């Protein structure tokens, strides 16, 4: 049994309560009888939604931070966006939580491993409970898919917090398991569709920042989630040609599909384009996480002129072409002659 089957197998067992199969079948039919009509994710697209005016963005003194470890913003009634608190992890990644009639997709799990330190699991569970209460659904009837954009610890560290959650499948932490999780056989070109129960998520490969990265498009809100390959901050491009090809793939996708917002995993720029250095725990004047397709196109146009390694500002993002991992743009402010 490989790891993936093993995880699915366990989830299937956990879904059956220990009170006996016959009783379960009876409650299942009862639940089905009372189950409300499925939500329609196909008409009136794109589904309206809103990003917050301002995200929680750290504090001048970390130990005096009283904000929740994970901020939950409901973009619309069926889409939550989570952000980790800067005082719990300076990476403060953004993570969407997409609800469908049958399953829930969590993309990215933050940078703190222990539940004791930062309780990501409870934040997600509470979102699912809230959604179920609003839609008169039983949380146990929803499957949770715990996936991530790419193979970096600030995006998967809390995956283990979901290991004992019933009816849950977690993406594995190798390239093979990631690609296999979405059933891809031709990464990165192949585009697969994930059905959350009436809500389709399109997924394809987006290497460049790292080898193992995906782009996710939600057909309901029409948000294109680009991970760390393209976000409002310093896009660390480890492999130029694959990154450029991935950008081309994103542009091609935008040419054929309606996209409302392009969203990355982090924000590292202020509203006036000033760079927040790597590791900062307070970004009081942070730019919004969402970007427009136009900004993506501008970045692509700018990237076409790049031939050398270096740092380039496209007007929206910094493209750090093959610079080292934590490049920052600032200088020593106390230089003098």
């Amino acid at each position, binding site marked *: 049994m490989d790891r993936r089957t093993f995880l699915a197998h366990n989830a299937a067992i956990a879904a059956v309560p220990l009170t006996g199969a016959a009783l379960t079948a009876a409650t299942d039919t009862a639940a089905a009888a009372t189950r409300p009509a499925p939500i329609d994710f196909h008409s009136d697209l794109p589904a309206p939604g809103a990003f917050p005016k301002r995200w929680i963005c750290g504090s*001048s003194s*970390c130990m005096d931070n009283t904000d929740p470890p994970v901020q939950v913003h409901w973009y619309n009634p069926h889409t939550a966006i989570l952000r980790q608190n800067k005082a*719990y992890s300076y990476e403060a990644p953004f993570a969407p939580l997409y609800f469908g009639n049958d399953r829930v997709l969590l993309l990215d799990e933050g940078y703190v491993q222990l539940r004791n330190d930062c309780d990501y699991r409870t934040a997600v569970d509470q979102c699912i409970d809230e959604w179920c209460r609003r839609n008169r659904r039983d949380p146990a009837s929803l499957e949770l898919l715990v996936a991530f954009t790419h193979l970096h610890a600030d995006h998967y560290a809390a995956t283990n917090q979901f290991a004992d959650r019933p009816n849950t499948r977690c993406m594995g932490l190798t390239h093979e398991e990631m690609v296999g999780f979405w059933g891809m056989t031709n990464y990165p070109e192949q585009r697969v569709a994930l059905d959350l129960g009436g809500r389709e998520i399109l997924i394809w490969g987006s290497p460049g920042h790292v080898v193992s990265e995906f782009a996710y498009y939600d057909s309901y809100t029409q948000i294109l989630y680009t991970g760390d390959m393209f976000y409002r901050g310093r896009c660390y491009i480890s492999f130029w040609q694959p990154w450029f090809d991935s950008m081309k793939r994103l542009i091609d996708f935008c040419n054929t599909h309606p996209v409302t917002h392009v969203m990355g995993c982090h924000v590292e720029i202020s509203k006036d384009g000033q760079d927040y250095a790597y590791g900062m725990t307070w970004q009081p004047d942070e730019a919004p996480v969402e970007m427009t397709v136009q900004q993506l196109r501008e970045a692509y146009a700018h990237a076409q002129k790049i031939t050398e390694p270096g740092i380039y500002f496209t007007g929206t993002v910094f493209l750090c072409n093959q610079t080292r991992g934590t490049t920052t743009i600032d200088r*020593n402010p*106390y230089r003098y002659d």
Partner: protein
Amino acid sequence: MAQDSTCTPTLAAKPPERPFYPNGNIALGYNTPGVRHTDSAVPLHRGEPVVHDYACDGPAPGSLSFRWTYGSNVAAKNRDPRVQVVQYNEDTFVLRQNVCVHWEAPFTYLLFGNAGALLIDTGATTDARHYPLRETVDAIVTRWCQARGRTSIPLTVALTSGEDIAQNQGLVQFAGRPATTVVPKPLAVMKQFYGLGSSWPSGTGRIDLGDRVIEVIPTPGSHKDGVSFYDPYCDLLFTGDLLFPGKINIGNDRDFLASLERLRDFAASKPVKWLLGGHVEMMFVPGRYYPRFATYKPYERVLEMTPDLIDEAIVHARAVQGKDMMLIRPDFVLFNGVSPDQKTKVWPEGVPKIDAPHPF
């Protein structure tokens, strides 16, 4: 059996055998130089303030053997004191800002004499609720005054650099404090205050605390208004941002070298036990350091530096002069004209490359 010499592995870096005295070393005698400078046995009913004798042969005894608070994995959950106070001796205190209040975690020094107290540097946070420096200093001063049979003592607040926001932010907390002199910040006014108007940077200024005269040595280099302080009682040299076990961002490489040379000449003419800088960023393994903004530094190097590190710093300040580069040494890293986050693959020759254990 005689051992075959070819079979003996060469231990290049074997530490020398250190003698161990579980019951004390009788050879040192009972009254080491400096013991008379611990005046714990103050009279029970004092009629007048205790006058302390700050004259001493050798450095006044003191100890920094206490671990500094080092932040926590999740900064929001840190519950360490906001200001850690370590008493070096009865008249010398070292204060450290909590790493989870501000990542710079600067050190602040409080020295007492018979006629005054001196606070060197003020920390990186303005807000007294987050960083109650004034409150802490007031408490130490009150307690010290009680021990010495006094009602108050004037305080001077001086900075190793007026422009450094990692050290000058706490200054506002002392606004309006009675009997307090704050050394003015702009460079020109500061020179006047120390009496260095015409002799900057070659002269030295003085701050007389009453039988304990702190010398002020101009040391621009990291900051254009940088100064160092020398305490002849404990033989400590407070070097601020000029030389500390961490990432030294050079502001001007000519000034930096000149200041180090001035400091070397000064240290040659006066006994210096330790250099105490403004921060610690190195790990306890050679040449490794914490990144900027780190709020968890469990493997920090100790704060104190021996004076021979001035010579090492001079050699390597020459090496980086006029070049945009960074240079790693076992006890400090020099950054000249590059980003504070610059990295290099160049590793100093002969220095063992050890990874500090990775915290969970």
